[in-house]
């Protein structure tokens, strides 16, 4: 659990982060959204003390983050940044092993962990381990960057626009990979982005920041349904709202009794994808199948449209 209590950061006369308090539950993903200059990156960097706050306390599992020297604290917290920041003079395997080496793990344990992470990220340890970062594609570099951040099995992972430099297709894949890995390791993730789409997709909770202040901190559905201010409403994007709301729900939860013609859609797909498929193919209903391939029922345009309406 991460408790942020009354955190303020001032540089001379400018207040970059203004009295922010929030609690991030363990094993969840909190996404901090805001425009550039909103203080979201500074807030993130105060958690691992790359920036020291002017006032306030941050507690990690109850312990003040100033109870350790900064560098020791940072070894216990994963940190992934935009443009990955891989060490160009070290191989992929050496890059991933950075924090375990600093922590003095023995060689066998480091190798096992590096191999595990590379396999998890679909990078063959034999083929990619000895390569240098500039020999990899952008998507591969990004994966190595996240693998490096996760190498020492941190409970907390901080990510500063980790997908910012990726093209849309690789980006979606990287987001899915991260969600899968978060489930697997149970890591608490705090992710900074300026992309509301990403925030709604990834976050268990979303924190919206504007001019250093925390404007709203709530579940995605709540942010979409009841934006706390005009700023949040703009950020959400009025024309995108119903679709973002649908993207939060799974098809499984919108199933109605009955059957329909045509190719079935998996129950895990988002309701937004189902609606898109319905609209595109011009059909009023789609059959739904479970993970085992058994039919679950159907989704209808009418049913989905009702779900896209503003919650009462």
């Amino acid at each position, binding site marked *: 659990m991460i408790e942020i209590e009354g955190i303020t950061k001032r540089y001379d006369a400018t207040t970059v982060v203004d009295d922010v308090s929030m609690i991030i539950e363990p094993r969840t993903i909190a996404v901090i959204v805001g425009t550039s200059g909103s203080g979201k990156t500074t807030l993130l960097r105060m958690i691992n003390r790359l920036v020291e706050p002017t006032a306030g306390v941050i507690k990690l599992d109850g312990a003040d983050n100033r109870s350790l020297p900064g560098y020791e604290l*940072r070894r216990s917290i994963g*940190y992934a*940044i935009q443009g990955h920041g891989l060490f160009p003079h070290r191989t992929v395997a050496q890059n991933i092993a950075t924090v375990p080496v600093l922590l003095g793990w023995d060689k066998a344990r480091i190798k096992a962990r590096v191999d595990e992470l590379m396999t998890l990220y679909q990078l063959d340890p034999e083929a990619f381990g000895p390569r240098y970062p500039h020999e990899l594609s952008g998507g591969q570099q990004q994966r190595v960057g996240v693998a490096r951040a996760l190498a020492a099995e941190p409970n907390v992972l901080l990510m500063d626009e980790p997908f910012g430099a990726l093209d849309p297709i690789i980006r979606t894949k990287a987001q899915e990979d991260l969600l899968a890995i978060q489930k697997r390791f149970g890591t608490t993730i705090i992710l900074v982005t300026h992309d509301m789409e990403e925030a709604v997709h990834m976050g268990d909770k979303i924190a919206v920041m504007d001019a250093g202040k925390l404007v709203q901190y709530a579940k995605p559905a709540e942010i979409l349904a009841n934006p706390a201010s005009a700023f949040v409403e703009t950020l959400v994007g009025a024309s995108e709202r119903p679709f973002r709301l649908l993207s939060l729900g799974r098809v499984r939860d919108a199933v109605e009794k009955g059957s329909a013609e045509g190719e079935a859609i998996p129950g895990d797909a988002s309701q937004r994808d189902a609606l898109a498929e319905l609209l595109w193919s011009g059909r009023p209903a789609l059959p739904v199948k479970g993970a085992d391939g058994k039919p679950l029922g159907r989704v209808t345009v009418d049913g989905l449209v009702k779900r896209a309406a503003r919650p009462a």
Partner: protein
Amino acid sequence: MKAWLPSLLRLALVVLLIAFVTNPDWFEPLLKPLTENNAPVIYNQGSLLTLTLLHLRIVLIATVAATIVAVALAILVTRPAGVEFLPLSRSLVNIGQTFPPVAVLALAVPAVGFGEKPTLIALFLYGLLPIFENALTGLTTLPANVMEAARGAGMTGWQRLTKVELPLSAPIILGGIRLSVVISLATATIGSTVAAKTLGEVIIAGLLSNNLAFILQGGLIVAALAVLIYDGLSSVERYTARRMGREAE
């Protein structure tokens, strides 16, 4: 040009240089037309080989010392605690460059006497600036997100310096050392005016006795050394740059 041609030229120059300093007599017929009144063709007051080795030694000592001091200074002024010394150390090093080497020699002789010492001092002061400037450039132009990642991974200041900053700026620092060595190779000849044993001795002897052959053989050996060392260090530099992943720049 064919790819093997530069290597062949380099090899030829090395062979020629070694042959010349070890067996200068072989080349006597070539240089003979440059002398008058039956003056000696090949320098006869010391072996060319010994002078070449002494010349290289003096350059080596001065460059190593200059490298250590210049890189240490550059590291110091790029740490948060040392930033205020940046202007001071810059001007100190610049002073080393504004003094003509002859003036440094003239000032150093009364203090440390004749011989190698004043020459070492002059070469050391002369070598500082290019290395310092390059080290400074290297250490201040590191990619920002790599430095951020190094801090974020929990490296201490010392670990960042030795594991990230110095390796990544190595190619640029090497460039400074290369410039410094070439300047020193040429400047060391002046050291012979204050009795340092360098190849300058041959040139000065030639000037005094109006012997063009002496001047030419002293000058050519220094020039060949400079070309070869410059070339060698350039390829070391290219190799390091590739290793440090900076080749794309």
